[in-house]
């Protein structure tokens, strides 16, 4: 217990072993481990994230372990793009090194690189792998074939040297006299000797025997110069350690790292083969750091005894063999061969002035190698002159800033400064003394000149100068642009009336006059036009001229309408800005127009619709608005139908509106069409001054832009005969319209879109009685006698009608199928025919109609009171049923009074016999039409008719 008190416990104690349980000897294998989540269930990671066991000891997903990333992205929280991993991220350090798979670092280009370096980079490895070791083959040394096959290509430095007169084998430097050369050679040999003995460590020496002076004759001929000897420059490696000369200790770097072997040979990452080479060459080895034996990784293990041979030591200072030793230079990463990294840190950079040859021009001689090779001078010159205009443009680029400034009226900055200075401080700034200045002023004064400060004088000078130079420049510019602007002058360039010379002449005069007023133009043309021209031709010509002038305007004119130049805009802007805001008086204008809010909008605003929603919809205007196209623009004045339609077609004698002469029985347009046209036709006469149109023409004109479906009325008016129209058209407007009118009346609203039927009839009722009316309103005997008008327009008389109808009735009896399609006799309604069935004055539900008709009658009475006595009207259903004209009731009653109806029918059929025979075709048409117009009621009548025919 005491001991326990003194103990300190760390960590949590293991649970005490239960007595019965024997601890498992084997730990559970990883594959047997089961991971459970907090609910005690087995956790499954999914096939691609580790299955049941994931991560180190199944720690994936656990509290301590690694959590696999799940991709989550929502609108609120966008997934952050993952870091893009590059292949380099997975590489080792060595891979990024110079000899790795992804080397990084600065390198000289192949062209500039040393040859052996190139070898290393490109072929060395391969060669080493593929070939047996050097010297191991039957032929020692580098294979001959490989040397032979090496591409001949000088390095850049060599090429430069050669171009400067250097030849291989020579040294570089100024040419020497014999004496100088000898001295230099002596010096070189001495240096090399020293280097060999004390300088650097040994190398596989390159057998390059120093050149011996072939002749030691002392010819002090100064004129003969020699190229200097070629010798290897000496590289000095900086001494970085405190070892003895040319001793390098054991490298501390690991054996496989680059720097460990770098001392032995540059640019080689593992110097595994260097030793072999040395052995093969049987060259003397240098002293190497093996002070403490050989390391485990050291390859030279077996050489340990062979190395420290006493023969390797020199025992005398005698010059053994002139040898050239290459100084090794440390190759570090990112350092170009021949350089060493600056360890000092401080960069000492002294710019040296380079003494360039006088006519040296820096130039990349590689630039023009093949097709870009330097051009011969003549050609270049020619080309230059040919393309000069391109560069110079319109002379804008000939100007230097000063000239431009002058052109713009600006002052030079210095001048400005000069100008301002004297004003500020007129006396001090000049070198002149105060006295001198005063003298000068007084002198000027006495001379009678105006005292001006120097600045002002200058300014006047400047102005003059500017003017002169401006003129010169402008002249130049004009010269250059002269030939750019031909044929912009006048529209006369285009001759639209070339066929007629006189006309063309007139046209040109007209264009030159530039008149806009219509009457002036007519006057002008009247003076020029020949007398033979008719009035109409003159009018036409005027029109043509105006249009031609519009169309064949020069392009700039045409475009001026549509564009304005930036300059204009700016000018306006400037003008506007010059006006002070006080000047610009804001005048408020208020305009009010109708606007219809949609019912839904009103509903949402909780407001009743204005006028109870009965406002006119403005949408229709939008629909009729034509599309804008280029062709419309071009055609506007020339080809619009309004301008060119009728003058050539309409002879003059029918120009008068037909209404003036009531008796002429010309075909009247159908009332329906006229109704539509009324509002528009009122405007038209003012537009077309010289050609009034007949109503039919007007109808044609108007319907030109309409879709075909709307043209049916027009077609009817053209192809149908007017007299039948009359019979059908007398039927009042469809009941729906009537109801609407009645409703409007009841509401007390002004009817907007649809005028009341009465109003229409009043409007319509301007022509004399025709057709049936003619027959009706004339006294019987007059109608019976004859009509003076041409037979084409003769109204069909009542008795003829009877006859025609009878004949058809006969046919109907023969053919029952046809009878189904035909119009029943009950269809005949309208003014009562003379001598027909006694009429019933009116039906109760057609009250409005009757009112209208009464009006009509009154009008007739006013116009032609003598011609008629009294009018009797037959209402629609009177013939079939005398008691009630209601559709349904007539249907019901048809069976009861069928006999009555039959009798009437026979009478009627007699009356219509003649009509049928004369114009059966027409009657068919009219029947078809009537069928269309009266829809439901007709059908019911058909039924009754069928029944009757069966009877």
């Amino acid at each position, binding site marked *: 217990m005491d001991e326990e008190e003194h103990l300190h416990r760390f960590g949590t104690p293991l649970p005490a072993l239960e007595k019965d349980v024997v601890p498992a000897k084997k730990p559970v294998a990883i594959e047997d481990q089961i991971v459970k989540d907090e609910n005690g269930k087995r956790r499954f990671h999914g096939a691609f994230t580790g299955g049941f066991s994931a991560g180190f000891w199944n720690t994936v997903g656990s509290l301590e372990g690694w959590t696999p990333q799940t991709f989550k992205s929502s609108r609120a929280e966008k997934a952050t793009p993952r870091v893009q991993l590059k292949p380099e991220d997975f590489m080792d350090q060595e891979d990024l090194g110079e000899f790795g798979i992804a080397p990084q670092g600065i390198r000289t280009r192949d062209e500039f690189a040393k040859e052996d370096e190139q070898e290393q980079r490109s072929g060395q490895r391969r060669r080493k792998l593929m070939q047996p070791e050097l010297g191991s083959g039957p032929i020692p040394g580098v294979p001959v074939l490989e040397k032979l096959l090496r591409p001949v290509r000088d390095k850049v430095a060599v090429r430069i040297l050669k171009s400067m007169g250097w030849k291989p084998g020579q040294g570089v430097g100024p040419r020497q006299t014999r004496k100088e050369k000898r001295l230099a050679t002596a010096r070189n040999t001495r240096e090399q000797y020293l280097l060999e003995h004390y300088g650097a460590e040994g190398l596989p020496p390159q057998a390059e025997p120093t050149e011996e002076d072939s002749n030691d004759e002392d010819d002090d001929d100064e004129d003969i110069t020699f190229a200097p000897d070629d010798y290897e420059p000496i590289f000095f490696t900086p001494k970085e350690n405190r070892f003895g000369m040319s001793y390098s200790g054991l490298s501390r770097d690991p054996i496989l790292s680059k720097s460990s072997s770098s001392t032995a040979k540059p640019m080689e990452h593992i110097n595994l083969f260097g030793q072999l080479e040395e052995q093969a060459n049987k060259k003397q080895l240098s002293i190497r750091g093996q002070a403490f034996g050989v390391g485990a990784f050291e390859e030279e293990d077996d050489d340990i005894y062979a190395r420290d041979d006493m023969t390797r030591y020199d025992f005398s200072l005698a010059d053994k063999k002139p040898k050239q030793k290459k100084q090794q230079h440390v190759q570090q990463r990112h350092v170009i061969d021949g350089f060493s990294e600056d360890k000092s840190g401080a960069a000492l950079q002294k710019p040296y002035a380079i003494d360039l040859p006088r006519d040296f021009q820096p130039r990349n001689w590689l630039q023009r190698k093949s097709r870009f090779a330097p051009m011969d001078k003549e050609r270049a010159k020619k080309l230059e002159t040919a393309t000069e205009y391109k560069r110079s443009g319109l002379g804008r680029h000939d100007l230097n800033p000063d000239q431009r400034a002058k052109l713009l009226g600006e002052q030079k900055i210095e001048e400005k400064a000069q100008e301002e200075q004297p004003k500020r401080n007129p006396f001090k700034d000049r070198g002149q003394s105060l006295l001198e200045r005063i003298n000068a002023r007084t002198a000027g004064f006495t001379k009678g000149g105006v005292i001006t400060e120097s600045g002002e004088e200058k300014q006047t000078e400047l102005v003059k100068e500017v003017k002169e130079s401006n003129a010169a420049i402008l002249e130049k510019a004009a010269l250059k642009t002269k030939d750019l602007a031909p044929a912009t002058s006048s529209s006369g360039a285009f001759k639209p009336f070339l066929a007629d010379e006189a006309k063309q002449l007139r046209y040109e005069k007209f264009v030159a006059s530039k008149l806009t007023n219509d009457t002036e133009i007519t006057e002008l043309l009247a003076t020029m036009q020949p007398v033979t021209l008719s009035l109409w031709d003159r009018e036409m010509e005027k029109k043509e001229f105006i249009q031609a002038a519009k169309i064949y305007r020069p392009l700039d004119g045409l475009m001026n309408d549509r564009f304005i130049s930036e300059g204009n805009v700016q000018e306006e802007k400037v003008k506007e800005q010059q006006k002070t805001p006080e000047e610009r008086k*804001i005048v408020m204008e*208020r*305009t009010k127009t109708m606007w219809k809010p949609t019912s839904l909008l*009103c509903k949402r605003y909780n407001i009743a619709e*204005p006028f109870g929603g009965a406002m006119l919809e403005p949408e229709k205007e939008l629909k009729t608005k034509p599309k804008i196209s280029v062709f419309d623009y071009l055609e506007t004045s020339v080809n619009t139908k309004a301008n060119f339609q009728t003058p050539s077609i309409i002879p003059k004698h029918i120009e008068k509106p037909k209404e003036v002469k009531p008796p002429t029985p010309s075909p009247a347009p159908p009332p329906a069409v006229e109704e539509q046209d009324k509002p528009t036709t009122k405007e038209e006469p003012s537009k077309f001054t010289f050609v009034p149109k007949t109503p039919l023409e007007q109808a044609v004109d108007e319907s030109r832009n309409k879709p075909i479906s709307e043209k049916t009325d027009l077609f009817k008016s053209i192809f149908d005969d007017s007299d039948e129209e009359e019979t059908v058209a007398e039927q009042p407007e469809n009941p729906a319209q009537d109801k609407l009118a009645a409703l409007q009346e009841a509401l007390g609203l002004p009817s907007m879109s649809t005028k009341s039927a009465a109003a229409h009839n009043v409007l319509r009722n301007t022509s004399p009685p025709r057709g049936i009316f003619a027959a009706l309103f004339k006294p019987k005997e007059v109608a019976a006698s004859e009509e003076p008008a041409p037979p084409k327009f003769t109204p069909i008389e009542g008795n003829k009608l009877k006859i025609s109808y009878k004949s058809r009735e006969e046919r109907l009896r023969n053919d029952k199928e046809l009878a189904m399609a035909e119009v029943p006799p009950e269809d005949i309604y309208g003014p009562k025919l003379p001598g027909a069935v006694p009429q019933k004055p009116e039906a109760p539900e057609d009250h409005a109609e009757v009112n209208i008709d009464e009006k009509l009658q009154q009008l007739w009475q006013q116009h032609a009171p003598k011609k008629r006595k009294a009018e009797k009207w037959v209402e629609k259903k009177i013939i079939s049923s005398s008691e009630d004209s209601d559709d349904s009731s007539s249907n019901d009653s048809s069976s009861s009074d069928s006999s009555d109806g039959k009798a009437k029918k026979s009478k009627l059929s007699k009356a219509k016999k003649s009509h049928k025979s004369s114009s059966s075709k027409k009657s068919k048409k009219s029947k078809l039409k009537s069928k269309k117009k009266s829809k439901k009621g007709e059908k019911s009548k058909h039924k009754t008719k069928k029944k009757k025919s069966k009877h």
Partner: protein
Amino acid sequence: MPEFENFNVKTTIDCKQGAVRAVRYNVDGTYCLSCGSDKKIKLWNPVSGLLLKTYGGHADEVTDAAGSCDSSYIVSASLDKSIIYWDVSTGAPVRRLRGHAGGVRCVCFNEDSSVAISGGRDNAVMCWDIRTRRLDPVQVMKEARDCITTVATNENRIYAASLDGCVRTYDIRVGELTCDKVGEPITYLAQTRDEQCLVAGCQDSVVRLLDCETGGLLSEYKGHRGDDYHIECGILANDAHIVTGSSNGDAFVYDLLETKVLQRICISDNGGVVHSLATHPKRQEMLFARRRDMYVFSTDLQIEEEQL
């Protein structure tokens, strides 16, 4: 006539959403909205400067926004030609209304927030039914000849200011369109609280007070600089002071009757156009937008009262 007290800066909020295109109060002024050029709308508490919510979904810069009368929805206009109807609490776009042929410049709700009215660069004013799920506009008004800069409405009228220099009043009750031509491009339009007058900020650096009834020009307020910017103007809650932004980093408060400058609020010394502003619906408080920041200005006294 209430006495004028100088406005002082209360909060400065860096909105962090690019340039702030518009700042707006909600219906009672407890929150404010900022529309950014980064296509987002942010909801702030203007007093504390706390960011409450960010609404993202537009495809281009947001030009205007408005809160509904119950502050549960936001409608926003964007240069992507669409209008988005947002749920405030969830931050989700409820409806996206496309119909404008150009970028939408301005948007507003009617009084009971059943209709959203928008005006755009396609010269059209469009009324959108918010209640139903209808995706096409209830009505399109295309009378304007240039870009619509502001739409405003009251219980029976819709006002649309356009760069063609006209204020168009669509009177729903009468069924009449009244076009008041000012002649200068109108960059912003604000209604007075009594709905008798309109405050129109014009391109020529003048704010004009227009009479709704007669269409007359009541007074002009000059002093600020508009240059070519769409400077907004407003009228303070007491209907006695008119405030406008300026292109040189200031804001001006004018007296409505005397048309003189009451205060030149120097918002920033180093320039920046104060182009958007909003006036508090009840208090003497204003919001300004300049570059990326939103500024809340208020009279000190008011704050003290609030605190007490």
